[in-house]
């Protein structure tokens, strides 16, 4: 029997394994579906990783390499090209080219990351022509396989992945005709708007969406419509953009098929419900990184996973399990909050949350049973950026609620 199995060797899986090892659990196995460690980082060749952790700006592969070295230094077992098929209480079934295996373990860290929202989920009318890619698939094809994607490209979605791909395609000689965004603001960083779009004069259509994909065999163009304040397209103001390729960058979803089948309770983030030790509703099963909720900064993925790894080690070594009894409730202006429960153990809890819409002069309030226990002001908040707040547990009665409101008086 293994002490700990970590599923996935992305930023989260590597950090969880390292910290569990450093907390005294040596018998660890990491199982990774891909041919190398690093997860999504291996295809993110742009720079912008690790400023908080290493105080320098690294590319994705460089950030992954630093953690991979730490994993190898500790002699932690890693199985590559191996996929976990099922978690059945504390048994893990996995498959690779040599067969199907089963491993019993004391604890599990879920670190499967995310997958992209598919086009089907968006219901754009049209045939199913060639030339439609999700942005992440396109990134993989270009950066790891050296493929060219298309000559004239339109991108739907202006989050960071869409912006970064607009630049990447332009550098490789494609003509990016437009980035189309349904919201009145971009979910991406200012820096990416400037350095990925403005540097190359790529137009950004805010409050617009794609209402039709034209072409039978290959994409021949898209119909773009402005939307009203309820995000409904205004078809009489629609216009066509001829193109041969459409990139869909419409968001990531936590990858939780395994989690669901294992019977863990899921939350509105698409990830499992966890307490502040990152334990799911299944005892001894922990989760961290994009599998739990989508992160924009890898540094916070690594920190969260370190915490999960440390708690998994504590569970293995002492059999201790905190009783998480205080619910964390996303209130007005808050889309979600993680963890969903906190325990009475320890002094402080770190709550991560996302805002529902961009605000200036925002006031963030932490409320326990109708009483404000903490208040913070921020000049700008945006749904594209995860917020973090630490709260002293002794101040909370039976429930913790988060609210965010715009404050006009500065």
């Amino acid at each position, binding site marked *: 029997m293994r002490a700990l199995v970590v599923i996935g060797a992305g930023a989260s899986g590597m950090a969880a394994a390292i910290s569990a090892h450093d907390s005294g659990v040596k018998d660890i196995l990491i199982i990774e579906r891909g041919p190398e460690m690093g997860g999504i980082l*291996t295809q993110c*060749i*742009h*720079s912008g990783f690790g400023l908080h952790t290493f105080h320098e*700006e*690294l*590319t994705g*592969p*460089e950030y992954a*390499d630093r953690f991979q070295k730490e994993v190898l230094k500790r002699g932690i077992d890693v199985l590559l090209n191996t996929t976990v098929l099922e978690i059945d209480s504390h048994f893990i079934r996995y498959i690779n080219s040599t067969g199907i295996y089963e491993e019993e373990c004391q604890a599990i860290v879920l670190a499967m990351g995310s997958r992209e929202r598919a086009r089907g989920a968006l219901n754009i009318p049209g045939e199913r022509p060639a030339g439609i890619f999700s942005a992440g698939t396109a990134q993989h094809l*270009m*950066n*790891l*396989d*050296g493929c060219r994607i298309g000559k004239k490209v339109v991108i739907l979605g202006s989050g960071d992945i869409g912006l970064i791909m607009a630049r990447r395609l332009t*550098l*490789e000689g494609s003509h990016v005709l437009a980035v189309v965004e349904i919201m009145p603001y971009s979910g991406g*960083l*200012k*820096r990416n*708007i*400037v*350095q990925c779009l403005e*540097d190359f004069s790529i137009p950004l259509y805010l409050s617009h969406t794609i209402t039709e994909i034209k072409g039978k065999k290959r994409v021949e163009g898209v119909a773009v419509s402005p939307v009203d304040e309820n995000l409904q397209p205004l078809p009489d103001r629609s216009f066509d953009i001829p193109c041969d390729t459409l990139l869909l960058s419409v968001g990531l979803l936590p990858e939780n098929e395994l989690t669901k089948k294992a019977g863990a309770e899921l939350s509105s983030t698409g990830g499992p419900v966890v307490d502040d030790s990152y334990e799911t509703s299944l005892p001894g099963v922990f989760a961290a990184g994009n599998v739990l909720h989508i992160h924009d900064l890898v540094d916070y993925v690594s920190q969260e996973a370190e915490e999960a790894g440390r708690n998994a080690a504590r569970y293995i070594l002492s059999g201790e399990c905190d009783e998480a009894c205080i619910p964390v409730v996303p209130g007005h202006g808050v889309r979600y909050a993680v963890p969903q429960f906190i325990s009475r153990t320890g002094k402080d809890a770190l709550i991560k949350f996302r805002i529902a819409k961009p605000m200036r002069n925002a006031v963030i309030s932490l409320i326990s049973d109708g009483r404000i226990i903490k208040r913070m002001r921020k*000049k*700008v908040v*945006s749904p594209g*950026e995860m917020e973090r707040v630490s709260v002293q547990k002794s101040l909370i009665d039976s429930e913790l609620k988060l609210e965010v409101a715009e404050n006009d008086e500065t």
Partner: protein
Amino acid sequence: MMKRELVCIGCPLGCALQVEADGGKILSVSGNSCPKGDEYARQEVLAPKRTLTASVRTECGSKRCISVKTVPEIPKDKIFPVMEIIHTLSVRPPISIGDVIVHNITGTGSDLVATSAFPS
């Protein structure tokens, strides 16, 4: 005299900056809420620089590409000339992270450096 409007990329606040310049001299920067904005505006108007990242094809072996970046940053107007060189390159193993692939690429004074490894 020239006036330029920029959005500061220093932090999520995204201050709207106004820059007045005359030839190669900055006369004034306004709109910034902190010194970082002033510094950014001067750099961006006088000599904008970028880190360029890309992939380079390999000649053989298990990997089709390795990733690269320019160290230090290159002038913004050198992005496409450097990309042209990158498109002509192909590399062989072994390559470690940090290996210089091209010294002083197109005379920018910057090196093209590997950011992923390609063991033999």
